[in-house]
C-alpha cells in the first residue's frame, strides 16, 4: 500500500494586505501518495506556489493542517522544519538557484555536506546524481558556464542526490526552451520511475502538464479539479 507523503486538510493561507487579508489558499484538502508524479496547475495567483512553499516548510499555514511525511508543517519549529527540508525534501526552482561560487560538483554535493555524509559517500552519490542527469563532464564548471537546461539538470541532481522522499518543483521549465524542457522532464520522469521519488510540480506550462499523471487544478486558492489525465506522455 503506498505511503501517504502529503496530507492537507482544510488548509487556509492568508496574507495581510493593508488592514485586511488576502486569502491565497482557501480550504484546501489534498492527499499525495508516494511515487506520484503530480502537478498543481492554474493561472498566476491561483495559489500553486503558496501551497508548494507550505508543503516545503518554507511557509506556514494560517489555519488547517498540512502533514508532510507525517509532520505537521504549522507545528514545526525552525530547526525541525530545516531538518525536514534537509533530509526529505528536494527543491527545483524556476531560476535554478544554484550557488554561484560553487562548481557543479559542489552544488550537487552541498545537501550531502549538510547531512554530514562522509567524503567517500558524498563522492559516490554526487557521481551517481551527475550520471542521472548526464552532466559528469561538467562537474568542474561554474553555474555561469552552463546553459539553462544544464543548470536545471544540476538543480535536479542537487534535489535528488540525497534520495529525498519528495521533490517540489516550482515552474521548473519556465526559463527553458522546448528542447531543454523535454530533456529535463524526461530526466525527472525517469528518476520518478527508477527511484520511486514523489514529484509535485507547480506549473502552468503545457509541456509539464503532458507528463503529469495527476493534475490538481487550482483556481482562486481552491481546488477546482483533481484528476488523472486520460492521456499523457507517460501513458
Amino acid at each position, binding site marked *: 500500500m503506498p505511503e501517504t507523503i502529503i496530507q492537507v486538510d482544510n488548509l487556509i493561507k492568508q496574507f495581510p494586505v493593508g488592514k485586511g487579508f488576502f486569502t491565497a489558499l482557501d480550504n484546501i484538502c489534498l492527499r499525495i501518495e508516494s511515487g506520484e508524479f503530480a502537478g498543481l496547475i492554474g493561472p498566476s495567483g491561483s495559489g500553486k*506556489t*503558496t501551497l508548494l*512553499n507550505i508543503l*516545503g516548510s*518554507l*511557509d506556514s499555514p494560517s489555519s488547517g493542517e498540512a502533514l508532510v511525511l507525517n509532520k505537521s508543517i504549522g507545528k514545526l519549529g*525552525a*530547526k525541525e*522544519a*530545516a*531538518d525536514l*527540508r*534537509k*533530509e526529505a525534501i528536494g*527543491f527545483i*526552482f*524556476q*531560476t535554478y*538557484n*544554484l*550557488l*554561484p*561560487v*560553487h562548481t557543479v560538483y*559542489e552544488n550537487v554535493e*552541498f*545537501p550531502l*555536506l*549538510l*547531512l*554530514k555524509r562522509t567524503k567517500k559517500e558524498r563522492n559516490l552519490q554526487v557521481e551517481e546524481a551527475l550520471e542521472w542527469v548526464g552532466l559528469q563532464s561538467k562537474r568542474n564548471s561554474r553555474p555561469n558556464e552552463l546553459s539553462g537546461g544544464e543548470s536545471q539538470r544540476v538543480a535536479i541532481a*542537487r534535489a535528488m542526490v540525497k534520495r529525498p522522499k519528495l521533490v517540489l518543483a516550482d515552474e521548473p521549465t519556465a526559463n527553458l526552451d522546448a528542447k531543454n524542457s523535454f530533456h529535463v522532464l524526461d530526466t525527472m520522469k525517469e528518476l520518478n520511475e527508477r527511484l520511486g521519488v514523489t514529484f509535485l510540480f507547480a506549473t502552468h506550462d503545457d509541456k509539464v502538464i503532458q507528463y503529469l499523471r495527476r493534475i490538481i487544478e487550482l483556481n482562486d486558492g481552491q481546488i477546482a479539479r483533481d484528476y488523472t489525465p486520460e492521456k499523457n506522455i507517460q501513458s
Partner: protein
Amino acid sequence: MKLAIYIAFKNLLGAGLRTWINVLVLSFSFVAIIWIKGIMLGWDHQAKSQLIEWEIGHGQYWHTNYDPNDSFTWDDSHASPSDTLINAIREGRYAAIFVAQGVIYPEGRMVPVCLKGINTTQQVLKLPTSFLIREENIQSSAIPVMMGAYMANACQLKEGDQFLVRWRDMDGVFDAREMELVKVFATPVPTVDAGQIWLDCSRLQNMMGLNNEITLLSIPSYESNELLFSNEFQFKSIEFLLSDIEKMVQMKSKGQSVFYLVLLVLAMLAIFDTQVLSVFKRRREIGTYIALGYTRSEVVRLFTIEGGVYALLASALALVYGYPFLLWQYRNGFKMPVDVAEFGIAGSNHIYPLFSLALILGTFLLIAFTTLLVSYLPARKIAALNPAETLKGRLS
C-alpha cells in the same frame, strides 16, 4: 561550525575581486594601526630614554626652592652638599648642576639664557662635558662653554665664536665676561638645548660667589643612600621627571587614535557595505540555503563567519606585506617629516617604532571583533527575510 567555516571560505574565495579588495583595505588598516601605534610606542620609549640619557639620569635631587619653570626661584635654589658627596661629584659619579640666569650678547643681540654649570667629570649624562675643560696651554680669558645645535643656530653662533655674558652674582651685583663656544652638540632633548649655556660648574660657582653650591643633582641609579645630604634637597623620582613627556605622548596618542579609528571605520564601512549588498545581491542564494536545510540563525552565523574570515584573510595578507614592512621600520626607523624639537618634545627625528605582541594581538582582536559586528548586523536583516520570497530574488 566546521561546515559553516568551509562554506564561508568557499563563498569569499569564490567571490573573487570583491573579496580581495575588502581584504586589502582591511589588511591596510591592520598594518597602519599597528604601525601608527608602534611609532607612538617607539617615540614614547625613545623620548624617555633620551631624557634619561641627556637630562635626568635615574632620578634627581632638587633644591627645595627650585622650580625649573620659574627662573625667579633660581637665585635661592642652591645649597652645599656634604663633603662625601662633593668627592663623589668630583669623581664624576653624579652630575651636579648649578642653575643661574644670565644674558648673552651674540652679534650685538641680547638673549636671556639659563646658565648651567655642570661638573666636567660627570659620567651620568650624555652631555659632552669634557669639552669644557680648558687645556692649560690655551691662553684665553674667555670662559669655555657649550650649547646645543638648536640654540647655536638661534643665536647664529658657531664653535670658536666669542660673546659677552652678563649675570648677577649672589650680592646682586652685575658682572660680565667673555665666553667662548668650544662645543656645539647635537641632542634630541630640547630641554638641554634651547635657551641654555653649559659651562664648568666650578666656574659658574665662582662667577656667582657660591663655591661648592649646587641646584640639583642627577644620579646614575636608584641607589642613593649617600645622597641623604640635607633637608634642603628633595628627591624627584624618574616617574615624576618623565610625567610631562608621558602626558605629551598620551595626548599625541589620542590624536593618532582618531586617525586610526577613521581608518578602521573606513575598512568596516567597506565590509558593512559588502555585507549589506549581499542582502540584496545574494538574497536568492540565502533562500536556497534555507531551502536546502539551513535555519535562519544558521544563515546569520554563515554571514557572520564570512566577516570573521575577512579578518583572517586580512591578517594573513597583512602578514605577507606588513611583516617585512614593520620589520624594516623596526630596524631602520621612521624619519619624522618635521623637526620634533620644534614641538618641545624630546625625541630623535628618526623614530624607531616598537611592536609588542600585545599591540599586534590587540589590533587583531579589535579588527576581528568589529568585522564580526558589521557582518552580524546585516546578517540579522537577512534572517528576517521571508525565504519563499527570497527564493525568487524578492525582498519582503
